[in-house]
């Protein structure tokens, strides 16, 4: 009997589909003429991303049919549970919106190579895999897939010095951090004899505190902390985001980040929380503070949003520090909320940047409320969400995180929560600055911004709807994130919260 069964293929169906579409795009690229617009490839890849989502729905269907679906597959390599499904839906969606935003961008930048879309799709494969992988080997490879594709994409504007600089910085520092991660994995292997997360979890839970394992955890935190851009490993973010093409920043500030957070969730909650609590506490406080204060003085939109993304990583880590089901659930929810608003914001940035990314200074945004009402309006929604105004994803996510922090009833957590709240108030200044510029200043830019293409509009509207949806009626997503949080301990088979065409079962009140 073949040890690899059909269900195993279903467990990696989104990856397979995405990879297949990646290959299709590569092949099709060869058919197109060199100077021709690659829009058609973009559309194919868009279909691919959507197919990835569809594949995830297929997984959900299997989940309903086969209770053993959530068991580890591929000899303990992957586990497609509620947690993984959450990211399987989220990440291709992010990619899809990034692709939509790229369609126009590539033409504007006069980039005519279809590998771009293939790289996005392959990177998505890596990210998706990161969320379902439960074996450090596979996590490592998936991480590298997503990283390498983003290294390349960051340098995609090859004629541009800052783009290649961004790429090299990202690459060198990323590899540097990966080495730390690997070192941690090695020590963990030494400490527990396994690289499988459930095994590690079980070993650590059973054994006495093991310094080697602690050191291993620390080193893995370094590596993953780098990927999620949390202080003190955030330092690369502004430079890389500034130099990289805007749609790619939209992607890499959300997709790989969400995936990295997924891994961080898997890894950290496999170890003992008390060991890393203070570390994450400090990191969260530092990230929020450094990010927000850094952003206060930026004049480049991309850089500003980069600092803001550091700060948001900090908020997310607050949820980690809070721990517990609420904390994990809050962290999961936050990734989605952050993705929705940040993808949207960078999509707008990529539109306004125009050819050569000329217009990325804050002042270039003056008077946009008058010139491009729709784009300014959607950007306002994203910014408000980033500030954390009620009715938007950002608010509920933040609220949920802080609620998790306060639920602990511990002084340290409440203090962290307060630091976070003050930070989010400070942060409102720089987001507001952009809104102010758009609506309250007269344009200084001589050039009238081009009107957005339908694809761009679609991308923005989708992102805006997601932002509002997550802020106003987050029940469905909250249910999923709660279920995902419960699946993080690998023990319960996981109740199925995803339904296709059926009403959402009422969630249990949080306690």
């Amino acid at each position, binding site marked *: 009997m073949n040890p690899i069964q059909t269900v195993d293929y279903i467990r990696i169906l989104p990856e397979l589909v995405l990879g297949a579409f990646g290959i299709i795009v590569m092949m099709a690229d060869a058919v197109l003429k060199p100077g021709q617009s690659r829009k058609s490839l973009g559309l194919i890849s868009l279909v691919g991303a959507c197919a990835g989502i569809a594949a995830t729905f297929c997984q959900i269907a299997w989940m309903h049919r086969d209770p053993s679906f959530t068991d580890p597959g591929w000899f303990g390599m992957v586990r497609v549970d509620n947690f993984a499904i959450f990211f399987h839906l989220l990440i291709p969606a992010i990619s899809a919106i990034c692709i939509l935003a790229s369609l126009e961008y590539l033409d504007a930048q006069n980039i005519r190579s279809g590998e771009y879309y293939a790289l996005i799709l392959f990177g998505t494969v890596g990210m998706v895999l990161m969320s379902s992988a439960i074996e450090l080997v596979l996590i490592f490879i998936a991480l590298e897939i997503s990283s390498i594709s983003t290294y390349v994409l960051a340098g995609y504007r090859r004629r541009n010095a800052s783009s290649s600089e961004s790429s090299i910085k990202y690459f060198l520092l990323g590899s540097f951090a990966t080495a730390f991660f690997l070192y941690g994995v090695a020590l963990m292997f030494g400490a527990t004899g396994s690289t499988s997360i459930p095994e590690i979890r079980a070993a650590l839970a059973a054994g006495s505190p093991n310094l080697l394992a602690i050191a291993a955890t620390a080193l893995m935190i370094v590596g993953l902390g780098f990927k999620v851009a949390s202080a003190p490993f955030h330092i690369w973010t502004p430079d890389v985001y500034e130099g990289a093409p805007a749609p790619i920043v939209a992607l890499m500030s959300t997709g790989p980040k969400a995936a990295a957070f997924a891994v961080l969730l898997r890894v950290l909650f496999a170890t003992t929380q008390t060991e890393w609590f203070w570390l994450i506490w400090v990191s969260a406080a530092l990230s929020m503070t*450094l990010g927000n204060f850094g952003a206060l003085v930026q004049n480049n939109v991309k850089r500003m949003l980069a600092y803001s993304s550091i700060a948001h990583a900090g908020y997310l880590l607050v949820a980690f520090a809070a721990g517990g089901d609420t904390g994990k659930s809050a962290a999961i929810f936050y990734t989605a909320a952050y993705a929705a608003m940040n993808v949207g914001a960078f999509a707008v940035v990529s539109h306004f940047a125009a050819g050569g990314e000329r217009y990325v200074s804050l002042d270039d945004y003056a008077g946009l409320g008058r010139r491009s009402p729709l784009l300014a309006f959607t950007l306002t929604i994203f910014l408000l969400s980033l500030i954390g105004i009620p009715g938007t994803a950002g608010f509920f996510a933040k609220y949920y995180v802080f609620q998790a922090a306060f639920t602990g009833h511990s002084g340290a957590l409440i203090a962290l929560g307060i630091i976070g709240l003050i930070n989010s108030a400070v942060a409102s200044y720089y987001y507001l600055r952009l809104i102010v510029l758009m609506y309250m200043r007269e344009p200084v830019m001589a050039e009238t911004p081009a009107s957005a293409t339908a694809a761009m509009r679609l991308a923005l509207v989708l992102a805006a709807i997601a932002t509002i949806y997550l802020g106003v009626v987050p029940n469905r997503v909250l249910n999923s994130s709660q279920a995902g949080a419960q699946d993080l301990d690998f023990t319960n088979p996981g109740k199925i919260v995803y339904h296709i065409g059926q009403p959402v079962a009422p969630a249990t009140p949080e306690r």
Partner: protein
Amino acid sequence: MNQNLNLWVIPLLPLIGAAINGLFGRRFKNAVVSTVALLFTAASFVWALRAVWTAWPGGGISLPYIESHGTWITAGSFSAPFGFYLDQLSMIMVLVVTGVGFLIHVYSVGYMAHEGGFYRFFTYLNLFMFFMLTLVLANNYLLMFVGWEGVGLASYLLIGFFFQKDSAANAGKKAFIINRIGDFGFLIGMFLIIQHFGSLNYADVFGKIASGHYAPELGWGLFTAIGLCLLFGATGKSAQVPLYVWLPDAMEGPTPVSALIHAATMVTAGIYMIARSHAIFNLAPHALEIVAIIGCLTAIFAATMGITQTDIKRVLAYSTISQLGYMVLACGVAAYAAGIFHLMTHAFFKALLFLGAGSVIHAIGGEQDMRRMGGLRTKIPITFWVMTAATFAIAGFPPFAGFFSKDEILGATFHSRFGGPVLWVIGVITAGLTSFYMFRLWFMTFFGEYKPGAVDEGEEAHAASAPAHAAHTTASHSHGHADDEAHGHGHVHESPWIMLAPLVILAVLSVVGGWVGIPQFMSGGQNHFEHFLAPVMESGPPTSTQAAVPVTGNDTISTHAGPPSEENAGQEWLLAGTSVAAAVIGLFFAWLLYFKRRDLPGRIATKIHGIYLLVLHKYYIDEGYGAIFVKPLLALSTVVFWHGVDQGIIDGLVNGAGSTSKGIGNELRRMQSGNIRSYAAWVAVGGAAVVAIMIWLGVGR
């Protein structure tokens, strides 16, 4: 008792008049406006007469008569109704107000005929009537306060009637604000009453006092406190020291306004209020003592200032303050009836004086400076004669009205333990001064030669040294009478009959008005006025309070009710004689200085230059208030509060927090040097820190 008097109609009628004129008056002809205003005022007067007639003591209605028309304010256990109250006291007040008010309305039709804003004037005037009637008819302090504030508003509007003139606008504002300062005291007094009696209704409050329903250990101090607060309110409204300063300035208003509001009615509200609250004051002898002193002080103080004024209306204004001082003095010596009596007679003759002065001013084209008058006796004879009656009345010559009321007060002062001879002497001196400055006015205006455009040589130098004063007189030229300028100088004319008729009626009242209160020792019969008011005033302190207030014997708070015994009659005659003598002396000096030897005033002025200037500038009280209160306050507000605290400290902190954050941000971003090796160093250091912290904490565990 069952009869409904519908007192509410009395104040409401003028309000309707005000509403009609206010809303539509702009489109009406002057005749329509005046008809409306007069109609509603007259109706109000008639209704008041009817009410008084019906409720006259001995009639079918037991006094006080109270009617209530729903609640105005309610909160928690507190509530204040729209309620009206009629007793002997309010009967007198309501008749004076509606009666004199109506006459002045009539007069105004003539006086204001050529002014702009005719409808506005009558709107305000009717509005004033509404508030004043509310004040005197209210059955609770809160509703009285409505009238109290409302008349302040009407006064503000009417003083500032010629709003294009800065001085008029300033005067209106000053009047309102200073009244507000007094109102502040009234408010606190009301709070105290609410706190301890739970209600502001007269019936409740006085009933509780009468039955001793108040905490005995609080009683005495409490009543003193309430009394002082109410007194403070009264000093504002009735222009007593130290809040009298607004009244002279209030002469910026049209003359009928001065007559109605600033002489006959509104300014007496304070006296009415004290008389109304006599039950409280009777229990607070120290408050009464202070009332008496303030009244006496005001009387003499204002009288001295009246001496040097050359503006005819200002002389009358100071005279009013002085006379109000008498009334307050009367209240202070617990002779409330005497105070109200003087209030009434004063309403007659002072209204007359103002209206007469208005007639004079009208006659000579808006001129108010007495130095530019003279010899008008023959040119406007009717005005002269009515003015003469009023002057004799105010100076206190028998048998004019002023004599009886003033004598009543002085007598009561002499007998009272709160007053005593000292205050009596001051009162008599004031009477002499009153006589002096009133006859000064009389002589300067009606005798000698008419000299328009001239300033008395003797006083010229001093007039020049008083620029404010000079400015004032020129300003008065420029007001609404400017169009009369053509027939102003040299074309002196008697006023029309619509103005003269009220004068004549008031003149009659000034003569005979006092006869209702001829004291017992003169007439042999009873003092009708006092007797009439006795039921109100004697519902004073029950003897039971004596125990609670041991320091105040019942004798000290005698209400001057009992008729003096036979043996005292001689003393009474002597006292009356003294005050008449003082008046005669005043008349003599006025004749000497302003008729016989017209050079003398100037020479005296140069001789006692310092004192003269002091008095001429009204003791620099206005300037003093300015320097002590107004300027420092404005400076404090501007420099310390606004620029200092607001913009400096608070906004400094706020903006400072902003720039500090940016500074921190700027420092932090220096980490972002752009160098990959530095970045790697941060990552490495971070890694080192992470590992070290975790190992350290792990070992510690």
